[in-house]
């Protein structure tokens, strides 16, 4: 595949592009994301080597401290900044420059988020917050850590307000028109984020923070866990939905095709909004205090949220086949040859899609009720989310970085950047295959997650986890080393594309909305209706079990901040 042809093809289109002032807001988000990324990657390297028994950690650095930093910086900071950066650029491209006021609001959101992120990171580095990114009570961090998390979430709400208002103004000025796919999908994603992060905010502000400050003597542990997972599961869809946006809206353009159907794409995002939240109990299947009935009910809803992913899989591959055939591909599979395999902007997200097949199947296994006992809190789960967020989401985001970064900084996506990108994608895929593959199998053998190097007084079972040919902590460490190399290369790509690449123009490769846009049903745009159904589903799935947790609660737990230091 000739890559230069493709680049020319894209630059030939005349499009308004993204306003320079909005570009600046986005590039700030991207920079924070990549700095968090590279620190998080080295945290992961140390964990892999330490857990494999290959290196001892220095006395001033705790395993669980690094684990907390790795989780917070990669799962929360990197993803969230990247997503908001993408949304600010996309909304400005779709609906024109942000107004002065809204842009100011965007900067306010960025600032509040960043104060929060820095505060939380400082507390982790001071070893005052080694509670992991799930911060399960009654283990307790320094109260400033919780303030940091709160500010971070509040900052995202402010930024969401700026993006949603910009879209809402367009909607008011264009009554009766169908929303462009980008803004429709971004709206669904942000509404999901706001609805779900309310749970985390309530938990921190009303339960954990007063307790950490000593204003209350005890905390309802089960309630904080329930509120965390009310937030924690939709969080993964908050990562996946922007990933799907790249697959729906950017990848078809990169392969020179068009999207299969707009109505079904919109329907998929509405279904994500409805079904992502009332499912948190599938993370708590193995614990007491919630009855089997409510766990099973949320398991059913968990399975329902697979449907929009099935819709997406069909749309994407239909787009691939349609495009491949239009470009002369014949036979059952030879259209595959027509896809631009040499273009990393396509190849990286494509590898992400491939990894999503085992990742999705693994997710269904995790959610399968009593079967969860086999894998709960084992390394299997760690292997699972390193496929989902750690490969599918991140490779898609990397694929996005190759055009988004040079577009923001007025540079060109060069052959050199493409070559580095292809190598980066392969390294990441190979490293993750080794690491995640070994983690999955070790998990089936019972190896625990979130645990430092341990042989449990040389218990034969635990020793075997270091001696397997593939299923071994050593394989995990080797995979981690390869992933670190890939991470360093990606950080170089970031520096190259923002500071070093030759000056020029790079386009926002947004697929035009499909022809069936004007026929897409009007009710899909009725956000009040979707929010109402979302609220009803949440009330249905959570009211009785939460009422039960409050009314029949055991005496609450005091602070345990001595155990983390």
């Amino acid at each position: 595949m000739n890559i230069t042809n493709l680049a020319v093809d894209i630059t030939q289109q005349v499009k308004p592009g993204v306003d320079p002032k909005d570009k600046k807001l986005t590039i700030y988000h991207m920079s924070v994301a990549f700095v968090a990324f590279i620190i998080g990657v080295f945290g992961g390297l140390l964990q892999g080597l330490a857990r494999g028994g290959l290196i001892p950690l220095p006395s001033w650095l705790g395993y669980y401290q690094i684990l907390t930093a790795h989780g917070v910086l990669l799962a929360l900071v990197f993803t969230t900044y990247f997503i908001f950066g993408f949304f600010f650029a996309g909304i400005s491209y779709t609906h024109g420059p942000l107004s002065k006021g809204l842009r100011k609001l965007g900067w306010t959101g960025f600032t509040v988020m960043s104060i929060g992120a820095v505060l939380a990171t400082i507390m982790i580095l001071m070893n005052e917050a080694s509670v992991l990114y799930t911060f399960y009570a009654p283990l307790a961090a320094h109260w400033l850590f919780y303030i940091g998390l709160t500010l971070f979430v509040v900052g995202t709400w402010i930024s969401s307000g700026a993006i949603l208002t910009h879209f809402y103004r367009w909607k008011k000025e264009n009554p009766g028109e169908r929303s462009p796919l980008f803004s429709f999908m971004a709206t669904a994603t942000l509404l999901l984020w706001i609805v779900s992060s309310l749970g985390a905010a309530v938990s921190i502000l009303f339960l954990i923070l007063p307790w950490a400050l000593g204003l209350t003597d005890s905390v309802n542990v089960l309630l904080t866990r329930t509120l965390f997972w009310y937030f924690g599961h939709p969080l993964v869809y908050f990562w996946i939905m922007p990933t799907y946006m790249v697959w729906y809206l950017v990848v078809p353009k990169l392969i020179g095709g068009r999207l299969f159907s707009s109505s079904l794409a919109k329907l998929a995002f509405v279904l994500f909004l409805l079904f992502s939240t009332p499912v948190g109990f599938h993370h708590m299947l193995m614990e007491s205090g919630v009855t089997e009935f409510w766990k099973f009910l949320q398991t059913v809803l968990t399975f329902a949220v697979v449907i929009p992913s099935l819709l997406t899989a069909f749309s994407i591959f239909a787009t691939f086949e349609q495009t491949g055939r239009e470009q002369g591909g014949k036979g059952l599979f030879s259209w595959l040859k027509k896809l631009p395999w040499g273009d990393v902007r396509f190849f990286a997200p494509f590898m992400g899609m491939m990894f999503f097949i085992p990742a999705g199947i693994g997710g269904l296994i995790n959610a399968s009720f009593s079967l969860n006992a086999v894998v709960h809190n084992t390394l299997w789960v760690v292997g699972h989310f390193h496929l989902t967020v750690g490969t599918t989401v991140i490779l898609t985001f990397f694929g996005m970085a190759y055009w988004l970064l040079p577009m923001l900084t007025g540079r060109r996506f060069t052959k050199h950047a493409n070559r580095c990108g292809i190598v980066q994608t392969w390294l990441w895929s190979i490293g993750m295959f080794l690491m995640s593959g070994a983690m999955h199998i070790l998990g089936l053998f019972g190896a625990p997650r979130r645990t430092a190097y341990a042989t449990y007084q040389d218990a034969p079972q635990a020793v075997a986890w270091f001696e397997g040919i593939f299923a071994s902590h050593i394989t995990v460490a080797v995979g981690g080393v390869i992933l670190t190399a890939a991470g360093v290369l990606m950080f170089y790509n970031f520096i190259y594309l923002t500071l070093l690449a030759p000056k020029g123009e790079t386009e926002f490769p947004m697929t035009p909305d499909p022809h069936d846009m004007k026929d897409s049903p009007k009710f899909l745009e009725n956000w009040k209706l979707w929010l109402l159904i979302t609220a009803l589903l949440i009330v249905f799935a959570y009211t009785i079990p939460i009422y039960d947790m409050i009314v029949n609660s055991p005496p609450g737990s005091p602070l345990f901040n001595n155990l983390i230091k």
Partner: protein
Amino acid sequence: MHIHKYEKIWLIFGVGSLVLFLGVIGVAAFAFGHQPPSHMATVDAENLDQDPVFSEPGLTKIDESTYRATLVAQAFGYNPNRIEVPEGSTVLFEVTSADVVHSFTIPGTNVNFMVTPGHVNMAEHTFNEPGEYLVLCNEYCGTGHHYMSMTIEVVPR
């Protein structure tokens, strides 16, 4: 809303699979009793020494081949930290926590559940093979989390 014929087939296949999977786990759960551990009893975690059950944790024999093990998980170990049962015994584990969240996990078996303070959780297992079984905590509970374990000795009859 127009849905392509192939997409209809794909969705029927996909949703059909999900319904089948849910059917299997639903029947296994509600007809055959393969439920996740979801015990509803509560205790006062700070005053377990006054609790009728957990003030004296340990193993009690119910009948010839059935035992009840009441255990307290606590950073960073279990009380008692060793129990011994004859081969072929069925043991009903009842576990609670005296401090933070732990787990009670016997790798290689289906015994793997969370132990949250204030709550009691349960699981049952029949030990058909003699030998030493490792029990470990797989929920992060503090700096010594990776030392938290106990042993179940299953002796030949």
